[in-house]
């Protein structure tokens, strides 16, 4: 039905045309869910955009064929292409928060879309819209349809987005990362909906995602892309369980499994990084080991309660406070890795901020080792914990000051904590540290934007290490990274932990990653700890219902497919 042949898309730039995708072949049959998988920069979204004719300027299709049924999509005029959009091809975007016009009611948006493509009366269009909403699982659709997007929760909103995409009965829907912004429970519902629609309405889906688990769960066929080219195409089971292309194989290796623990990931790129200890006589390693005059330090949270004042909306009533954390009791054993999992909004990052002193708990006490950890502003700038506790952040693009050179970023903890007073010495130590985290020492004079996300995250780790920390908080350190890079960083963290004996709080929404990394695990939900225990124990015998549900809903590859 949809046939793509030899598709090439180019982006003119001032340095000549840059090829975004080349030689892409793909077919999608009615009712088929076709997964399009690959890491960032693979060009998978470009394929989707080219099909629907919404390439971002100044990109253009440089060659190949695009046919939908009998229609040659490339030969359409601007108007014809626009008429086809919505009518025969539609699209679902990643983030339901931003996909809907905030100023228009759901009804207006649905009716306008329906009327754009079929000549029906207002009443008929409204009726069709209500029916559709009911069909995709929105209760009380007749009244809810009058609401504005912000009145819906994330999952409901994505349903509305899907309703908008299918309200004109398109033949093909391009779903670009439709569940990436959603929590697992919602993700599972949306995936079910997509599967149902494909089956019942015979809509063809192009499901673009980076998540192998999602592909494994619902795609009929899959196409693997890398750097603008197709690596491999085939039935999902065949591609995932018996990959023929080495890249696909490496990609599968890098996916952390949920159901068992592996010691190290095999990374698709040939290990450009040697594990610490393998670099003979590294100055940074020696310096770090020298600094280990302290015992291993654990962290204890005792009855932590944290609430934010609500937004005041009335003169008479005090606003209800927003409770972010409730009665958190947690002990992180010295030298262990504690995994902290939870969905978005569960309070994971708030807890990390409380430990680092960025915000103060409303009540409760924190201990670092045996010492009380002052909360919030009570923590002086020169408090020893400032140095002992370090953090690796989620987004390596924002955690490094883009206006400072790598050398300056790395030297900062060295002079701030008074470790090294000589600038030249600081510089050589920073260079050695770069080497230790697997980067070339000449990176020291470059700026962060000259590096990839994975490399930046290495720099971030290096900066944390240069403070000689005893306690490291890793807040979703790999969620912004591709799986292969994720594997590298996870490997690095594991290695460093084992060499330097750090205590780590590892925060993630990804259960599989946590399983690979942590010794113990705590499950957080709505600011409360649902369950706490050893990692293996929890994954094998979850106690809390919530944990069980989470484990059940996380899309995974069937065990039998695993290589």
């Amino acid at each position, binding site marked *: 039905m949809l046939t793509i042949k030899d598709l090439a898309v180019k982006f003119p730039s001032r340095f000549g045309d840059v090829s975004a995708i080349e030689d892409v072949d793909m077919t999608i049959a009615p009712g088929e869910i076709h997964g399009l998988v690959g890491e960032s920069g693979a060009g998978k979204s470009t394929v989707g955009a080219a099909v629907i004719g919404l390439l971002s300027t100044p990109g253009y299709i440089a060659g190949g064929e695009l046919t939908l049924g009998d229609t040659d999509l490339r030969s359409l005029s601007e108007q014809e292409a626009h008429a086809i*959009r919505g009518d025969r091809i539609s699209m679902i975007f990643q983030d339901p928060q*931003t996909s809907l*016009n905030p100023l228009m009611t759901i009804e207006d948006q649905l009716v*306008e879309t329906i009327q*754009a493509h079929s000549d029906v009366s207002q009443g008929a269009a409204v009726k069709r819209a209500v029916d559709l909403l009911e069909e995709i699982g929105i209760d009380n659709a007749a009244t809810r349809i009058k609401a504005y997007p912000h*009145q819906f929760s994330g999952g409901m909103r994505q349903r509305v987005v899907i309703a*908008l995409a299918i309200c*004109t009965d398109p033949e093909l829907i391009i779903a670009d990362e439709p569940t990436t912004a959603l929590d697992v429970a919602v993700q599972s519902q949306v995936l079910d909906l997509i599967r149902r629609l494909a089956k019942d309405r015979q809509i063809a889906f192009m499901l673009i995602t980076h998540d192998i688990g999602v592909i494994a769960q619902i795609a009929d066929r899959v196409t693997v892309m890398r750097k603008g080219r197709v690596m491999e195409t085939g039935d999902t089971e065949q591609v995932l369980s018996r990959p023929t292309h080495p890249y696909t194989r490496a990609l599968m290796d890098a996916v952390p499994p949920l159901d068992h623990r592996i010691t190290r990931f095999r990374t698709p790129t040939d290990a450009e990084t040697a594990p610490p200890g393998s670099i003979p006589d590294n100055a940074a390693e020696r310096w770090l080991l020298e600094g280990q005059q302290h015992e291993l330090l654990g962290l204890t949270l005792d009855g932590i309660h944290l609430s934010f004042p609500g937004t005041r909306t009335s003169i008479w009533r005090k606003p209800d406070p927003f409770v972010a954390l409730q009665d958190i009791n947690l002990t992180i054993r010295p030298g262990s890795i504690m995994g902290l999992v939870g969905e978005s909004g569960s309070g994971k990052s708030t807890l990390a901020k409380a430990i680092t002193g960025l915000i103060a708990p409303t009540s409760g006490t924190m201990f670092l080792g045996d010492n009380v950890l002052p909360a919030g502003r009570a923590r002086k700038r020169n408090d020893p914990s400032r140095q002992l506790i370090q953090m690796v952040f989620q987004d390596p693009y924002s955690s490094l000051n883009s206006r400072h050179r790598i050398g300056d970023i790395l030297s900062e903890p060295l002079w701030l904590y008074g470790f090294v007073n000589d600038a030249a010495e600081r510089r050589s130590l920073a260079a050695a540290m770069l080497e230790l985290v697997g980067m070339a020492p000449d990176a020291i004079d470059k700026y962060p934007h000259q590096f990839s996300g994975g490399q930046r995250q290495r720099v971030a780790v290096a900066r944390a290490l240069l403070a000689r920390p005893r306690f490291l908080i890793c807040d979703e350190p790999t969620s912004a990274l591709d799986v292969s890079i994720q594997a590298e960083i996870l490997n690095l963290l594991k290695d460093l932990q084992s060499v330097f004996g750090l205590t780590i709080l590892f925060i993630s929404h990804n259960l599989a990653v946590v399983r690979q990394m942590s010794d113990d695990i705590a499950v957080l939900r709505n600011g409360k700890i649902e369950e706490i225990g050893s990692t293996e124990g929890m994954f094998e015998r979850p106690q809390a219902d919530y944990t069980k549900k989470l484990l059940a809903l996380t899309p995974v590859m069937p065990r039998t497919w695993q290589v």
Partner: protein
Amino acid sequence: MVYFILKRLVQSVFVMLAVAFLAFSLFRFVGDPITQMTGVETSVADQERLREELGLNDAFLLQFGRFTADILQGDFGYSYRTRQPVAQMIADRIPATLELGLVALLISLIVGIPAGVYTALKPRGFATQAILMTTLVGVSIPTFVIGIMLIFIFGVQLGWLPTFGRGGTVQIGGWESSLFTIEGWRALLLPALTLGVYQLTLTMRLVRAEMMEVMRTDYIRFAMARGVPMKKLHYKHALANTMVPVITIIGLQFGGVIAFSIVTESVFQWPGMGLLFLESIRFVDIPVMGVYLVVIAFFFVLVNLLVDLLYVAIDPRLRVRDVQ
């Protein structure tokens, strides 16, 4: 929402008080009104007596207290120059300035918004470049030069439009309006254009920038992917979403429009508050100057309160509480 508005009101009162204090400082420092109030032949002793009568010899804080107390009682005092009640003098001039400012704003919106949309949708077109360049030159010429040029082209050389004043006005319940006669509109056109040029450019550029930003958002791309008709897409979806930042800036600028009308009014002899203010400066008519400042601040505060209300009207996120 009520709380939100009340909070803004309290802030507004603070702003007004601060402006009143500044206005009053002006009272003290701007010059000696007595020499302007009296003729050449008035003796020094007579001048001194008058100064004493007007309380100009009293302590600074005493004078400020008197000024604030009087204003709070609605007594804005009397002009040193004409001896008329200041409140009435200013009130008489408010319609002229407001109509000028509003029409200038209207021109800037009527021209600026479509121009902004056009230049945003066709960022590379020749017309876009021409519009951007023309408006850039437009805002680079001092207002008074533009005003005088317009007068000489359309008033003197072509003789199409009047060169000064308000033309025909109509009294409507104490509001003297020039919006209901053709003469009035003819007289209004040039000054409003002069005053509106800067606003027009600002509005256009703002709409253009916001529009280009909005055109990249997911919801516009999604609407595009659903095949929503282009006109609807541009005007109903995109333009509506650019309006929140646009009205904020326009609200903030309105005070500036009213104040900049000083220049325009002086060039076109437009009998508004600005002209009165300039005359007052010339004659050191301190009460008029002070009250003018307070009135300007009042307009600023009022317009910004209106802007807040407009937000609520435009954006359902502020109006409709989450039902879940």
